[in-house]
């Protein structure tokens, strides 16, 4: 049987057009900071990519800043926004959670949605300039946060808003609300790995983490990865263009799998099912079966899924996201995440169901 790849939230395969655009640049010489012809050509490519991405977010090019990853982008925002107080949601990615140890954690409900009342009460009490960092959609459960409401609260209390939109780009429409810092990653939308971006929607400044030659308007030093950002821009354009169509398709397939799972085993718990979710993600668990056992069985059957966020890994840790949602302990350890993407086919979906049926006969 052909391999089934349901791990797009960890990494999407690169889109052919992005690959072609990138490979063309990869073979070319030239440091974009050099003033000669080769340098200017590289610089032109870099700025063209910046312009393309900026336009998708309806901002001027100077408000798009490239980094080497979304982890770096998140770190930059959390450390460099100039805010003295930081509030994050309880289900943030490690690259937000692990950055500022003094950050205040806003709880989420059982569906994984942030407690807006709590956030409001918190913001009311703040005297110092506050940064609120809430991801647009969760990487493990796919749960979408009410970013419009959060943005409105931030505006009301004069707080800055950061959203890690890595898992939302290309999967749901963007908000029209003011977002001061939006970060996202190239390799989750079919762009090359090794590239992330910060969109500073309101033109707020960010202090650099990496210093040196003054690239990226002094905000991020280091020779720019022109090839990667070129591919990134192509992938972002495609992701934006096909978002609406992809939403319908993936949601249908995701629902198909979930419906089957629920029918096949009444004990299966689908996390965040009661909330708005991005269409490509399903996170579920069965009690008394560890995620590891399932992963090994699925892997042997040629199915790539994950037990959560693919990070330091090596060890399958209990999901902090599910814990924060109050998922019963018997379920937390056994969670599996399926995540689809731009090249997922319906055949993969039906193949998955038949493999699953073989592994876990109906009870």
């Amino acid at each position, binding site marked *: 049987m052909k391999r089934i790849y349901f791990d797009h939230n*960890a990494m999407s395969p690169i889109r052919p057009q992005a690959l072609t655009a990138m490979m063309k640049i990869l073979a070319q010489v030239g440091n974009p900071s050099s003033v000669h012809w080769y340098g200017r050509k590289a610089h032109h490519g870099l700025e063209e990519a910046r312009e393309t991405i900026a336009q998708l977010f309806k901002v001027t090019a100077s408000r798009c800043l490239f980094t080497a990853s979304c982890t770096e982008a998140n770190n930059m925002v959390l450390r460099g926004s100039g805010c003295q107080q930081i509030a994050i949601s309880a289900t943030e990615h490690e690259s937000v959670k692990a950055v500022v140890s003094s950050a205040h954690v806003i709880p989420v409900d059982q569906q994984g949605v942030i407690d807006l009342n709590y956030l409001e009460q918190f913001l009311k009490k703040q005297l110092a300039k506050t940064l609120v960092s809430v991801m647009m959609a969760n990487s493990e459960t796919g749960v979408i946060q009410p970013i419009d409401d959060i943005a409105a609260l931030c505006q009301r209390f004069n707080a800055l808003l950061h959203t890690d939109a890595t898992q939302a780009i290309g999967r749901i429409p963007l908000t029209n609300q003011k977002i001061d810092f939006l970060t996202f990653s190239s390799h989750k939308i079919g762009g090359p790995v090794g590239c992330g971006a910060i969109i500073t929607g309101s033109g707020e400044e960010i202090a650099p983490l990496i*210093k040196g030659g003054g690239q990226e308007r002094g905000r991020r030093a280091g020779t720019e990865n022109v090839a990667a950002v070129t591919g990134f821009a192509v992938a972002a354009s495609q992701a934006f263009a096909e978002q609406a169509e992809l939403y319908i398709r993936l949601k249908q397939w995701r629902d198909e799998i979930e419906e089957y799972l629920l029918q096949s085993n009444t004990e299966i718990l689908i996390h965040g099912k009661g909330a708005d979710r991005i269409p490509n993600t399903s996170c579920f668990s069965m009690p008394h079966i560890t995620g590891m056992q399932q992963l090994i069985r699925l892997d042997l059957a040629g199915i790539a899924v994950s037990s959560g966020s693919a990070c330091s890994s090596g060890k399958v840790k209990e999901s902090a996201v599910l814990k924060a949602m109050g998922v019963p302990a018997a379920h937390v350890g056994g969670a599996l995440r399926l995540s689809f993407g731009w090249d997922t086919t319906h055949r993969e979906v039906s193949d998955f169901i038949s493999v699953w049926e073989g592994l876990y006969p109906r009870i």
Partner: protein
Amino acid sequence: MEQQVLYFDYQASTPTDPRVVEKILPWFSRYFANPHAIDHQPGQFAQQAIENARQQIAGLIGAEPREIIFTSGATESNNLAILGGMRGMGGRKRHLITWVTEHKCVLESARQLEKEGFQVTFLPVQADGLINLQDLKQAIQPDTGMVSLMMVNNEIGVIQDVDKIGQICRQQGILFHCDAAQAVGKLEISVNPMNMDLLSISGHKIYGPKGIGALYIRHRPRVRLQPLFYGGGQERGMRSGTLPTPLCVGLGAACEIAQQEMKQDANHIKSLQQQLWRELKNVFPSIRLNGHEHQRYGGNLNVCFTHLAGKKVLNMLPQLAVSSGSACSASDIEPSYVLQALGLPKDLAQASIRFSLGRFSRAEDIQQAIDYLKNRLL
């Protein structure tokens, strides 16, 4: 247009070796999985490729694979080594020694440390660009935590006596960080006999891709760094963020090729450099070499057209890809701070040009460049 502009700027950026490009490609397309998603085989496969690359890099500098971590480039490596190294000393040692001709990212990291309350000594260099060992010995204090010195200067190509520095640092219990972005793959480096504790590597200076670099971090005795950023805890917690498998593979491949072809490259480059220097002296009798005449990397010629003092010579040579400073600061109009540190007055610094040669430079390019220079500068 492309054909006419001759590339003499290998120290700013090298082309990616076609063999490296070939190695990179499948890791972008066929084997794309997240190398940290080792829950499944595609992820494990990517992880193995990264470990293989780590081994290739370690092999080139005589290190162990576990002593290599990947970064986005030498700028990040230098930042991590200097900021992370000093911040990681827990306040016991608060003094850094470096030199005024270091790369901007080293100097800026050092200035950042000053803002954080650390003390930094910026030592001068001699008129030939080499450092003075006595200066270093005198600058060392009881709380000196680190010495940061580049092996090959990016602008003038002089090779510093890093062996000696390594010895001194080791005797005094001071960490030695070496920015080897311009030296790796070009000169023999072995971190153990050379007593290096931290060493920065760049991908796109050794025919690898841009956007990738590495930092060697000594394991015994262990060097501890505070990370620049936090997250998934990749690279043993020292550098979070998804590793770009294709770029890591590319850097590994570039290192392996460099190891195999170092001598061949060096001979090729040196003979071209001698040809270029000979011809330049012939055509421009008043030309001067910036930096030490012999203790220098063969791929660099930084020369001053003294008869054009006060003129911005770079601007007179649109058909040559050469530089007048390091690429990061090249967009600035200011004359090179490195040349000024050698004592060159501004008008001579402006009249200076760096030619840097590499693996794909050709003798006929040099002849063509000389003809062009004759036309433009005589």
